[in-house]
């Protein structure tokens, strides 16, 4: 760990920023591939002590975590359910059918109907598409914005950094839901706008994380070498700094997806989600809440299950990715 090779990040960059020794100890019980903190052997340019690639050991650590595999399985299931499901289970999700509203599960409606007669199972598929698209897109957009912002602030340093990061601090001081509700009340929400609104809150944390890493990366010899060779600031940031923060970015983006799905549910519950006939799991759940005392369980628990399961799944995957990237950092 004392050596730092060009293009490599050691753990001191603080990617996980967590108790990494702890992670090693816990991992050792499950996977035998982690050496007990022995330094990398630098002989003849060979970085790794075994022939195994970093990528492969990351995959192994990830798959040895059973919760991560479960999480990945749940995510794949929901993607199939939402996009392949409607091919086999045709329902009308555009026209309401008030004559068959609030029916219990039957052969024609496997999970019953809601208060305007939409088939609940079909609506779970259609709404799931919105929830997952908004979740992933908002996380991607927010993370991209945050990464660029944080890398620029960290790279420039000085006053620019101070101003840019104090803005992040100020926005973070406003609790996310207050900011989101305000934004959602100003505009008339649609799916693309919803993605922008959620991304507007989601970019703050990655900006902070990436900025902190950039501060250490900036002082590395290889970054200074790029500068000396005449590399522009843009090139240094895009080609040399951001790629080295990828671990932090990927892990954080995974958690952001989980958060975005929850946020969409909150906004829908608070009445400022995407207007009908578009739907999402959160909107279905909040619609079902009105019928809790009527005993229409099929309006509440299926949607609630979908939200909790998908959020848990993304959190599991994020946790495992963090462990996997810590392996990468340790092996370098």
């Amino acid at each position, binding site marked *: 760990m004392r050596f730092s090779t060009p293009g490599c990040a050691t753990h001191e960059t603080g990617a996980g920023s967590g108790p990494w020794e*702890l992670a090693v100890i*816990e991992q050792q019980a499950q996977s035998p591939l982690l050496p007990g903190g022995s330094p990398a052997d630098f002989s003849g340019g060979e970085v790794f002590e075994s022939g195994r690639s970093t990528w492969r050991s990351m995959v192994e650590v990830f798959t040895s975590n059973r919760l991560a595999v479960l999480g990945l399985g749940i995510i794949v299931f929901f993607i199939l359910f939402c996009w392949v499901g409607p091919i086999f289970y045709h329902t009308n999700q555009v026209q309401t059918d008030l004559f068959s509203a609030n029916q219990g599960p039957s052969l024609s409606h496997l999970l019953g109907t809601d208060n305007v007669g939409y088939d609940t199972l079909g609506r779970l598929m259609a709404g799931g598409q919105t929830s997952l698209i908004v979740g992933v897109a908002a996380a991607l957009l927010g993370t991209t914005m945050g990464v660029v912002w944080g890398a620029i602030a960290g790279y420039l340093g000085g006053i620019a950094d101070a101003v840019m990061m*104090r803005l992040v601090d100020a926005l973070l001081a406003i609790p996310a839901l207050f900011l989101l509700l305000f934004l*959602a*009340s100003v505009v008339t929400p649609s799916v693309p706008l919803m993605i922008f609104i959620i991304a507007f809150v989601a970019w703050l944390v990655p900006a902070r994380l990436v900025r902190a890493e950039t501060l250490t990366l900036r002082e590395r010899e290889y970054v200074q070498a790029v500068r000396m060779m005449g590399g522009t600031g843009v090139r240094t940031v895009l080609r040399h700094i951001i790629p080295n923060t990828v671990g932090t970015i990927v892990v954080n983006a995974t958690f952001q997806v989980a958060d975005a799905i929850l946020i969409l549910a909150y906004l829908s519950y*608070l009445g400022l989600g995407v207007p009908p006939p578009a739907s999402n799991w959160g909107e279905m759940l909040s619609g079902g809440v009105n019928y809790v005392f009527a005993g229409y369980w099929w309006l509440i628990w299926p949607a609630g299950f979908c939200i*909790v399961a998908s959020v848990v799944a993304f959190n599991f995957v994020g946790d495992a990715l963090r462990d996997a990237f810590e392996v990468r950092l340790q092996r370098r």
Partner: protein
Amino acid sequence: MTRYLIGRVLQALVVLFGVSVVVFGMLHILPGGPARAVLGPKATLVAIHTFEREYGLLKPLPVQYFDWLGQVFRGNLGFSYKLNQSVDTLLAANLPRTVALVGTAAVLAIMIALPLGVYQAVRRNKLDDYALTGASFLFYSMPTFLLGLILILLFTTVLGWFPANGPTGEVPLWDQLANMVLPIATLCLVTIALFSRYMRSATLENLVQDYVRTAQSKGVSPRRVLFVHVLRNALLPIVTLIGLSLPGILSGALVTESLFNYPGIGYLFWQAAQTDDFPVEIGVTLVVAVGVVLGSLLADILYAVLDPRVRYS
């Protein structure tokens, strides 16, 4: 210590300035500007112009900002045209109730989560640790309103112990403690899930430190190692964590208050967001953000008092 304190307070002041700029900016991203927001979509251009001249909205933005800031410092947070009351009055009535809710839930959560986290760390990778970790994952991943709903179903519909509606604003809170139970429990459970996970890893992190081995080889009893040596070190980062999680708890309070119709500032804000009552939205946002900044400042100062390493570095 003094230098650290001064630096930290200055930083908080800068962030407060940033907060005020952001909140002031919120006034001006309203569609059609503040005048349109107050007078409504049917107002004539003449009415809009008169309103803007009356309230100084035609001046340059920096001038407007300092005018606005001056009003805020004099304790004037605006006027709700929808509720026909000043935002100050609304806040004075609702803020204490939110403080009661958030404060009680946070204190209870700390009292439960910290021992729970230590217990999980000691029993790590055993069945009960897995069960508790699973439970905290579940609570953490569940929308707060769903959790509240489950509590209502369990304690109101099935057991009939507590009423499903929160307290009303008409009577003092201590006369309706039964109505407070479910809102506090909802917010508390979410917070426990968050804190116990951190406490577990903070304890685990310290259990592998050299000083633990030293203490053990000196012959210190395991109980003493855990509760005196490890616990004191593990508690330190929790102080920061509590400061950092204040925004999250307040977001949770907003949802909890809207589920139980609890008359706090979260509920007030929610109502305002639905009726486009922008002065209330902006006033509440400002107060909440200032609270968060002061809360994290307090946590950092407390941390410096508790941990001498911060003071001398």
